[in-house]
């Protein structure tokens, strides 16, 4: 095992959150925290932000405009055919297609964004610090260098709530 970091392993969410808060008070941010389910205090505490919702919104706006203009172009400029006396630019009909096609495109684009940004794709070899992090353990990975003078204190915080592995 690479010894540049220590693992704090906890049995439940409360211990993890308490330990996490105390470690942060010492001015040390763990490298990464592994949990079997999302813990909001940690997600907020780690200070990462995701802009995936904004990305999705802008995909939506652009795709919707794009599709609506494509439909208008195809049906009323490129090759206008008379279907049952409907106007070439059948706006109410186009709305329906636009909604669904936009939804489809947002999904595909957002999934791609997610895969790329989180580097999650088929066949990826995961970097597993602790086998039970996806099962029933909450694992905190702390870089030894970042601990500096606080090593003792942090070790004792972790052992107070869980154990070091």
């Amino acid at each position, binding site marked *: 095992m690479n010894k540049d970091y220590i693992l704090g392993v906890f049995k439940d969410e409360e211990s993890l959150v308490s330990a996490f808060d105390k470690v942060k008070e010492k001015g040390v941010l763990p490298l990464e925290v592994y949990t079997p389910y999302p813990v909001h205090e940690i997600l907020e505490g780690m200070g990462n932000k995701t802009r995936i919702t904004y990305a999705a919104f802008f995909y939506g706006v652009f795709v919707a405009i794009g599709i609506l203009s494509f439909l208008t172009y195809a049906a009323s400029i490129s090759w206008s055919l008379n*279907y049952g006396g409907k106007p070439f630019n059948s706006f109410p009909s186009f709305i329906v297609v636009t909604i669904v096609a936009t*939804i489809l495109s947002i999904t595909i684009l*957002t999934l791609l964004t997610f895969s790329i940004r989180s580097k999650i794709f088929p066949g990826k070899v995961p970097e597993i610090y602790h*086998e039970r992090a996806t099962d029933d353990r909450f694992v905190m990975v702390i870089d030894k260098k970042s601990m500096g003078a606080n090593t003792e204190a942090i070790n004792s915080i972790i052992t107070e709530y869980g154990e070091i592995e």
Partner: protein
Amino acid sequence: MYNSEVRGRLITGDKSLGQISREIIAPIHAKTPVWWYFAVLVGLIMFGIGGYSIFLTLTKGIGMWGVNNTVAWGWAIINFVWWIGIGHAGTAFSIFLLILRQKWRTAINRAAEAMTVVAVFCASLFPLMHMGRPWLFFYIFPYPNTRGPLWVNFNSPLFWDFVAISAYLLISASFWYFGMLPDFATIRDTAKSKIKKTVYGIFAFGWTGSSREWLRFEGLSFVLGGIAAVLVVSVHSIVSTDFAVSVEVGWHTTIFPPYFVVGAIFSGFAMVLTLVVIMRGLYKMNDFITDSHIDAVCRVLIFISLIMGTAYLTEIFMAWYSGSQYEIYMFFHNRLTGEYAFQFWAMFVSNAVIPQLFWFKGMRRRMWVVFVISIIINIGMWFERFNIVVTSLSRDYLPSTWASYSPTWVEIGFFVGTLGMFITGVLLFFRFVPMIAISELKSVAKFDKQRNENLKHNDHE
């Protein structure tokens, strides 16, 4: 703060997180039971019958079916709408209950979503096969034609349908799949055998459960959830426009879009109930899918059943109120009393009357009653589609074209085939995929603890 005294426990048996994973994954690691092989065999035989029916249809023509010049859509479209309605449950379950913050959904939504994917797949076969020339289905793509700019007709509800169903199939599948990533990772990390580790490792896409991943995962679920909510409503609304934009009596009515959506959710929830009762019985998941889970689904069903009843009555009332002779004929002389009156009343009784039994707690707590009623609702919803598709067509404007319709065995065989496909799909799901969302269940497990004042709600949003 979650008041488990009033709300009931989400998981019984005070399980640790490790126990939750192990018990849910157990069927995947355990030896395959004999009944499973038997059931798959039944499913495959049914699928074979369907395959032969499709073969006959493809080689000889749609004439093999019972449809005719007047009733040009028959069982195929009925079954299509029926399946796609069932296919709405999964997404509706996850999304609407998420929005209403119903925590009990976590135990059921995985199964519901799996059902969705299989059902939508079954559904998509019907519009394809009911085409006269299915090998030319690609004409429906809006690609610039090689001989000039001939686009498709964007006004056509069938084109909307095509877009909507492909979107729905893709989105429900990815919503389901991406929700399973953490659970696949759990299997990968707890599996003993090398093969399982590798296979589920590939399925897990390298998931580790780091905070960064969870953060984006939550963002993704939020986006997909929000989108899927709109999608569920719009897909079935679009299916309803297959009927509602026409000028046929009984089809052209403005209530159809919401009415179809509600009906879809109704039939979907009923199918979820059927499936979950079976799943509970076969795999001993009673601790996760508790009696109060079943109870909650039943109560939702009462509510939707009332909406359905109101919609039926609205339609009948409006048919009279409209004063249009066609509408009046359609409802009072054709649907309520005509040739297909049995189908109408079967629909009415099984959708609007029988589910009212769920008002009684005794009914909601008896599993066999719940199971039987859920089946009745499924059948009732099938009759609803029959009532819409066939009854309206068989008696339209000019009496000279009135005709009756009855299916041939080829159509029935096709339907049986999709049933077989569904059974097989669901069985594969039971066998190879964690049938309850492990990570979501873990995230709500803490609410059952006695002292949970300090815990915050962790909704996936």
